[in-house]
């Protein structure tokens, strides 16, 4: 379980996060929803210790993050984190070099699933393929938690579908996923839990299934309620 407890973060005088708390469970897809600039990416960076917070605490399976944690949680940012001059195979070699949790079989499987050529240079890839490689580098790690920042933004419709397929496959099954988006329509059916954010504050955290059953509302219905209130 990832526990985000009352974190605040200031850029200068501006509070980007103001007491954000939520949890994300293993085996569930948790979606951080909010318009751009609401602090979604900052939360993911904070979970990965890629940016300092001013107060609060983040626990991963009850522990603060340390170097070994990176073997069981990974982050797929919205841009690829490999050098453009590298080939896909170099990038996979790099991952293999440093991560025990790297699963080459799964990587090969993803290569064929995404129809990628391992000898292509990252700089020569299309936007969609770059996003797929980015996804591959995270998914091929045998980790418990997967953080994804806007996996669908700015890519073509076919790539989007392919990526969305990943979420329903065994590649994601059983893992805890946190995903951010400003546009929910493509993935509404995938989400187990939604966290609605605005101005650095969690407006509502709810289980999609429960709300649907108990209140008969979809996530979009709840969003409408919350944001237009």
């Amino acid at each position, binding site marked *: 379980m990832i526990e985000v407890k009352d974190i605040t973060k200031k850029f200068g005088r501006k509070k980007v996060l103001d007491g954000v708390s939520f949890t994300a469970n293993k085996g569930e897809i948790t979606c951080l929803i909010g318009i751009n600039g609401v602090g979604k990416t900052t939360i993911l960076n904070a979970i990965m210790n890629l*940016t*300092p917070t001013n107060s609060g605490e983040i626990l991963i399976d009850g522990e603060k993050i340390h*170097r070994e944690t990176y073997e069981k949680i990974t*982050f797929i940012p919205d*841009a690829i*984190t490999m050098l*453009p001059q590298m080939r896909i195979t170099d990038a996979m070699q*790099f991952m293999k070099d440093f991560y025990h949790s790297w699963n080459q079989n799964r990587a090969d499987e993803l290569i064929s699933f995404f129809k990628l050529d391992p000898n292509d240079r990252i700089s020569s890839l299309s936007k969609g393929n770059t996003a797929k490689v980015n996804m591959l580098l995270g998914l091929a790690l045998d980790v418990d938690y997967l953080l994804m920042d806007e996996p669908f933004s700015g890519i073509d419709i076919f790539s989007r579908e392919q990526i969305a397929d990943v979420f329903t496959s065994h590649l994601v099954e059983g893992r805890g996923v946190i995903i951010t988006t400003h546009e929910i329509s493509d993935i509404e059916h995938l989400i187990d839990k939604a966290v609605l954010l605005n101005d650095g504050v969690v407006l509502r955290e709810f289980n999609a299934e429960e709300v649907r059953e108990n209140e008969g509302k979809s996530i979009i219905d709840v969003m409408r309620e919350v944001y237009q209130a």
Partner: protein
Amino acid sequence: MKNFWKLTNFELNRFSKIYFILIGLTLAMQTIGIVLLSSSYMSDVEEQLALGSTLEWIKISVGTFSFSSVTSSYWFGGPIVISIVSLLIYVFFIWYRDWFGKNTFIYRLLMLPTARINVFFAKATTIFLMVFGLISLQLVFILMENELLKLMVSETFREDQSLNQIIFSFDYMGVLYPTSIIQFFINYGIGFMAVFVVFTGVLFERCFRLKGILFGILFAGVALFVFISPVLLQVTILEEFFYPNEIFILMVITGLMVTTGSIWMSHYLLNKKIRV
């Protein structure tokens, strides 16, 4: 440790193209310099011979040719300066290149399941290896170029110099190649300490951005002050109190303090304050 060497190898590969260009440029320019300078010298000599001058007279009027005639030219010193400047710039760029561009590699480096200070050490080691590599290769080049010079200029007009004479006769080479091994460690120790301090300064900027530049400069200022504090004490309030070997020991201590302080501060910044 394994991860450290992997990272070092990785960092080395990232700069290897430019590095090979620097090596090639050095060899090429210095070789061209020797060919040009020695052939122009030999044509002067031949002109004199054609006029019927005696060998003795030519040696006096045109002068003899030695490796020093080459080392004092831009053909020789130019590539050395270019290499030094390139590496100095790269001390900064080795960090900033990870942040810049769309593909921000720093995410990857910071998310590696290894101590983040290894990234710092790998980058520092890369710089050190490249510095030592260039000065080593330059020594080999001098020997090769000296042989080339012997082919170009006939023995009568040549004043052969040994490697050490070439180095002694050239001021800034003395700094790069001290004869005493202790002096070598002092020169490069101070240089590498400075690299650590600059790295910490860069990390300050990366953590706190604009304000960080100020912190970085302040940190470098404090580091300099700590390092030279024995000398400052010596010339001010203590009035030559310390013996030279005591000053040496004190500066070794303050140097180590600055280096460990720099590493500790970088470790702290990388773990607690860094942002992507």
